[in-house]
């Protein structure tokens, strides 16, 4: 079995064994399946793409086709221990509402997103004058689902504005964890949030 991608591994580290987990934007369920296998979690997923949902259900996961912007409202409060939003926040119409909803549904939210403050992103705009395309942002501007990109510092500011607590964070570049100048150096961030 292939090891999880570094950002998914960082997310998995934040999930306690046996937790009730909701993975929002779970894709084909790779992370949920690993969490069920390795940590015995009680996992559920939401995914926009029908093909991905079918693949996840074929793996035996409980996944519903839906849209996090609209469908999180249907879940009761405190139904989960951990809500995961992996590489999805930047595609939400209302990231602010989605974050608040995740922390209504779950005690802990684990959010991963590509860092728009990464130096390659800055450089491609500054020097190239073109919308950035990087390893973390591989799709051209006209085709990307990402409508609300942010930097690590932007995200911290939103967390503060929403009065949620940052319990921890992991910053990644090429799969390696960084400990300094992350807003410039990290391609991707994983934040662990809890209700303020």
């Amino acid at each position, binding site marked *: 079995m292939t090891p999880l991608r570094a950002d998914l591994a960082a997310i998995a580290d934040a999930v306690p064994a046996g937790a009730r987990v909701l993975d929002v934007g779970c894709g084909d369920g790779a992370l949920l399946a690993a969490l069920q296998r390795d940590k015995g979690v009680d996992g559920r997923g939401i995914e926009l793409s029908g093909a991905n949902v079918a693949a996840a259900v074929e793996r035996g996961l409980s996944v*519903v086709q839906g849209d996090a912007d609209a469908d999180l409202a*249907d879940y009761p409060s405190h139904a989960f221990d951990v809500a995961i939003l992996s590489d999805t926040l930047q595609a939400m119409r209302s990231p602010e509402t989605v974050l608040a909803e995740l922390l209504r549904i779950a005690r802990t939210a684990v959010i991963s997103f590509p860092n728009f403050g990464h130096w390659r992103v800055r450089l491609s705009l500054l020097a190239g004058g073109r919308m950035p395309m990087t390893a973390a942002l591989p799709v051209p501007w006209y085709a990307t689902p990402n409508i609300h990109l942010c930097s690590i510092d932007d995200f911290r500011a939103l967390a503060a504005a929403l009065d949620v607590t940052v319990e921890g964070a992991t910053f990644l570049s090429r799969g390696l964890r960084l400990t300094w100048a992350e807003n410039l150096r990290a391609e991707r961030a994983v934040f662990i949030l809890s209700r303020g």
Partner: protein
Amino acid sequence: MLATDQRFGLDRRVRLPGTLRLESGKHIGGVEIGYETYGTLDADGGNAVLICHALTGNQHVAGADPRTGRPGWWTRLVGPGLPIDPARHFIVCANVLGGCSGSSGPASLDPATSEPYGMTFPVITVRDMVRAQAALLDHLGVGTLAAVVGGSMGGMQALDWAVAYPDRVRAVVAIAAAARHSAQNIAFHEVGRQAIMADPNWRRGAYHAGPPPAAGLAVARMAAHITYLSEEGLTAKFGRALQDRDAVTFGFDADFQVESYLRHQGLSFVERFDANSYLYITRAMDYFDLAAPHDGRLAAAFAGTRTRFALISFTSDWLYPTAESRRIVRALNAANARVSFVELDSPHGHDAFLLDTPAMNRVVDGFLRAGE
């Protein structure tokens, strides 16, 4: 389980003991249920799968219908090497109460009069069908079901199973279904019923000594059949193509292929279905509303459920559209249930659940195996 046990096998029939109390408050005695079983019940009884049929279906889900010779109606999903497999599962499929394929219905003889019930047969509901199935499972020695699986009205029964017998169902697969009949669903059914009742041969349901209301039932079937297909599918299959002619005839023959097709659908249906059964079963579907006993709160119907659910809808199904499945998913999420849901692409309308849909098979297979 002995291979010679007469309870198991193809084309079986049982008379249920005692009387069945119906949702209407009436009782019915001497209820017969026609059913089939495939595969072998495990020693621990854990591999039983109940399959529920749709409005005009029957118990011959995977075996040929002995009356028509037609193959089973869900041989794409049920059979060796398929998601519901007699090598792994003990499969039960029963004709619904009110039906006309071996189970008690309006065409059956009323034990009290030895005459066909006709319209004296009590009005039944989906819950009554489910209770009759539960009594059949008692007879077969099946306690808890690994799964209840159905499409359309079969999906409604599957959902109702989880509500009526929450401790007896580990998993539900409801395909192209709804938790209630919409005004549009009821309206189409009423057109069908009025077509039957307007046929002079119907004679208030007492037609068993004479010719049946075939014209009325055929029209009912034609109208219903349109609702099972999509505009896209009809256009692709027929367009405006003419039937065995080069020009319209300026008359009322079946000039168009689609007319000829519908007439054929209507005529072949009357050979295998009882008009009064059509009235009773469509009525049962119209009365179906899982949220009704809970002031319209569907989530309350599923409160505390431990059953796993898989819901599947199809893009071109306008009879039980995706929105109806989503409504069920919302309620199940609110009830904290383990639910999977996917809308599959198909041009075939409501009938997609009966047709070749590899994606549906993969989803059902993965879902069922996750519980085994």
